[in-house]
């Protein structure tokens, strides 16, 4: 980019035209003042100064640094958007520090106003730089190349040779060669006595530069569009269950600002079976090798059901939505009977994995109508290590569950919502005999005739993410355009070549000088190009080689 030589001084010096004399002050439209500038001019001056500061390269540099620096806490501290549980944990473990970090917006950096200010200013600076340069590029592309300098020898690359042709013909020959290489040419005015041709090429470079920067702006706008019109929802499904894509069915909903609940597509999905394969032997024993969710879905009620296998890198596309396999775990089935012997609870209860290597999982069973609650630890392949229940393999080869029972009022009849994965044991009594180990098929008869709990069997659950992002494809397109612009701006050189011929001292023929310069040296290689061009120009004139010069 060109330097913008911003004056270090304040706005007084920069209210340029007004300070420079009456004629130009009149051109401004303001009054020709005898002394100082009118107040409107002063404000305009300040604005102009501020604008020039904003669009200077130095400011862009500082803003880039701020952007990088500001992103760092977003990667080190837990963020509200991705992991609210960790944020809560941080608050509990750092009670004094956390509220201050929260005030600074450090738990949601990328949505924080100060972060937005940095990238908005950066984009303002970008646009403020790019738009004038677009004008300049268009203007420059329309103006012919500059006249050939008198003394081409001063250019970084130049070569001279003698030609048998008279100057006009020599220059014409050169012009043909250059024109053939798609250079834009300029010749002297018809009445000029000089013989030269100017050639320029490489405007694509600046165009690529501008494309890159504008495409970045496009990426920003696409992300914004996605945020406004898109949504993301989560659903946990146990094998055999199905669900309809409606607001109340979903576990988590994150809607864009302009989206409402009723915009959800009316598809339904059934999880037939989930298979997780693990490596059985060798050094990588226990590492997962494949996840496969066999689902059947209908895109609209009444449509033909279709099947699909959702895998981790293989989401399901329904209409314009995508359904991803995000996580999985175990859901042991329990049956609880109350004191009266009636079944109060029977359900496959999703347990949350505490250890993603061995899939030791935690969960709760709530049977409010039998006044019973249980906290459980499930292990898929159980061994006892010094009395502690551990899991040694993530597949459900030898499942077992250890339960701690509570009896009393679960507090579920109040209007306050509870998490289905947590049991509030205040006001409840622990049942003697806890913890009690069960394998599938076993029943724990609770003491005092309170009832019983049976560990029936084990199923698996998957968590699916259903997303809609209209800004996705535009963002990708803009990203690719940015990359293309980048490559063009790096590898296209703006260069100028001049050829000037003067009559040779010997009377016949001419001395032809070819000079060239390039604006930037990013990819290098202009030396070779110039050498080849010079050679082509020299070769295009028959008979020059036979001249022995002076």
């Amino acid at each position: 980019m060109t330097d913008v030589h911003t004056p270090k001084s304040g706005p007084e010096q920069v209210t340029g035209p007004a300070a420079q004399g009456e004629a130009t002050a009149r051109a401004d439209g303001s009054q020709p003042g005898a002394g100082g500038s009118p107040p409107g001019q002063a404000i305009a001056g300040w604005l102009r100064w501020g604008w020039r500061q904003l669009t200077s390269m130095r400011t862009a540099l500082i803003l880039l640094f701020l952007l990088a620096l500001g992103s760092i806490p977003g990667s080190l501290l837990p963020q509200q958007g991705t992991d609210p549980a960790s944020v809560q944990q941080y608050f509990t473990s750092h009670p004094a520090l956390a509220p201050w970090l929260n005030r600074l917006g450090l738990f949601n950096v990328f949505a924080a106003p100060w972060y937005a200010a940095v990238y908005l200013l950066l984009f303002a600076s970008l646009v403020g730089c790019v738009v004038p340069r677009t004008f300049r590029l268009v203007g420059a592309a329309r103006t012919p190349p500059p006249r050939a300098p008198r003394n081409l020898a001063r250019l970084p690359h130049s070569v001279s040779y003698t030609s048998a042709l008279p100057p006009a013909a020599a220059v014409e020959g050169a012009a043909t060669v250059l024109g053939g290489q798609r250079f834009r040419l300029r010749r002297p005015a018809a009445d000029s006595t000089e013989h030269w041709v100017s050639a320029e090429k490489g405007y694509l470079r600046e165009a690529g530069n501008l494309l890159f920067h504008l495409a970045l702006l496009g990426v920003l706008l696409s992300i914004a569009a996605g945020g406004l019109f898109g949504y993301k929802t989560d659903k946990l499904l146990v094998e055999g269950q199905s669900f309809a894509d409606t607001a109340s069915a979903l576990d988590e909903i994150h809607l864009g600002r302009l989206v409402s609940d009723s915009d959800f597509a009316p598809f339904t999905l059934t999880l037939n079976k989930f298979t997780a394969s693990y490596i059985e032997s060798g050094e990588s024993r226990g590492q997962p090798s494949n996840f496969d969710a066999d689902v059947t879905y209908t895109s609209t009620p009444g449509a033909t059901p279709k099947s699909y296998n959702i895998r981790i890198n293989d989401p399901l596309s329904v209409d314009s939505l995508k359904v991803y396999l995000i996580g999985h775990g175990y859901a042991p089935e329990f049956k609880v009977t109350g004191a009266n012997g009636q079944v109060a609870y029977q359900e496959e209860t999703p347990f949350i994995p505490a250890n993603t290597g061995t899939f030791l999982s935690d969960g709760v069973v709530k049977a409010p109508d039998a006044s019973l609650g249980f906290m459980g630890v499930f292990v898929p392949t159980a061994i006892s290590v010094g009395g502690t229940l551990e899991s040694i393999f993530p597949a459900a080869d030898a499942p077992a569950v250890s339960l701690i029972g509570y009896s009393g009022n679960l507090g579920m009849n109040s209007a306050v919502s509870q998490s289905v994965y947590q049991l509030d044991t205040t006001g409840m009594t622990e049942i003697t005999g806890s913890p009690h180990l069960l394998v599938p098929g076993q029943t724990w008869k609770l003491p005092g005739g309170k009832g019983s709990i049976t560990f029936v069997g084990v199923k698996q659950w998957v968590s699916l993410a259903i997303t809609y992002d209209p800004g996705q494809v535009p963002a990708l397109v803009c990203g690719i355009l940015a990359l293309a612009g980048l490559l063009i701006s790096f590898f296209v050189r703006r260069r100028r070549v001049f050829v000037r011929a003067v009559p040779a001292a010997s009377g016949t023929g001419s001395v032809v000088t070819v000079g060239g310069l390039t604006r930037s040296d990013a990819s290098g290689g202009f030396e070779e190009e110039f050498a080849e061009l010079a050679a082509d120009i020299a070769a295009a004139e028959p008979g020059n080689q036979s001249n022995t010069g002076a």
Partner: protein
Amino acid sequence: MSVNLGFAQASNDFLIAALLIYSLAVLAFAGDYAFGRPRRKAATAAAPAEVAQLAAVGAATAGAGAPAVPAGAAEPVSPAVPAVPPTGSAGPVLPRRVGAFQAIWEAGPWIRVAVALSTVGILSHVVAVVCRGLAVHRAPWGNMYEFITALTCVAAIFFGYIVVRYRAWALGVFVMGAVVLALGLAETLIYTAAGPLVPALQSYWLSIHVTAMTLATGIFFVAAVLGIMYLVSERYRKRVVAGKAEPGNGLLERIPSAQTLDKLTYRAVVFGFPVWTFGVIAGAIWADQAWGRYWGWDPVETWAFITWVIYAAYLHARATAGWRGARAHYIQLLGFASLMTNMLIVQVFITGMHSYAGVSG
């Protein structure tokens, strides 16, 4: 598919061999540094001859069989000054029309040995990487260890290209030394046995995204080494000018001039930056496939973004008055530091979705 243990073992063997050969190459480069024949005279003698060669080249490419341009005709009317660094220190920049092999031969016995060893080392390194791929039936950059072995291979090859293209033998000690260090670390601390990938990595995007990141990291690696050399060289030059150091310090006079280093660094970053950009875009596409969103400010994603922004700042700095010299290089090194942080610290220690490093930690 189970791991092919034969190839896995072969990969390990070839990598150790590469490490040893690289070490010997570093010694040979160092030997040239200390004992090699001075090449400065050869460089300055070449400068005026450049122009004659340019014209000669022109005539030669004009057509086979055309009569040669007489020496007189090639006499420049005005002194043409090709872009030889004005500081006049060692290291011709322009590719001389002498062939690569001849240039290596002319550089002296130490360089011949060093280049030969480096070539063998690179071959062994490439075989190691390929064997690893054959052992695990997939692209061999699925965990940190594989990633480092692959990127050091890229760095070594890229370095080889620069050295041969620009005849910058003096870079050898530094770049190859860094490669040896990195490989050594990988072998001792980060070694992971060959094994299959977790399902999340079982995608053809692995070949695209991680390959691009590997390439870019290798290129930035070389740029960083060159940047450090530039800073050292600049500091020495300023100290000489200020009278605080003796000129003619053999060690520092033999490396290419600061200007050359600056230009080479710039070209390396110019080469690596689009690759990094492409890698980030490919990563976003893959993230969308695997995780349901193309950008979620995952720690590794964030640091890749930070690295990108810093290298962008370097490119801007190079176009800004007052920021071109050492300052720009500080920025570039900051960018590499950010890259290393991403690779070695964030990916390993900070939990996120990118925790595939395979390092138990």
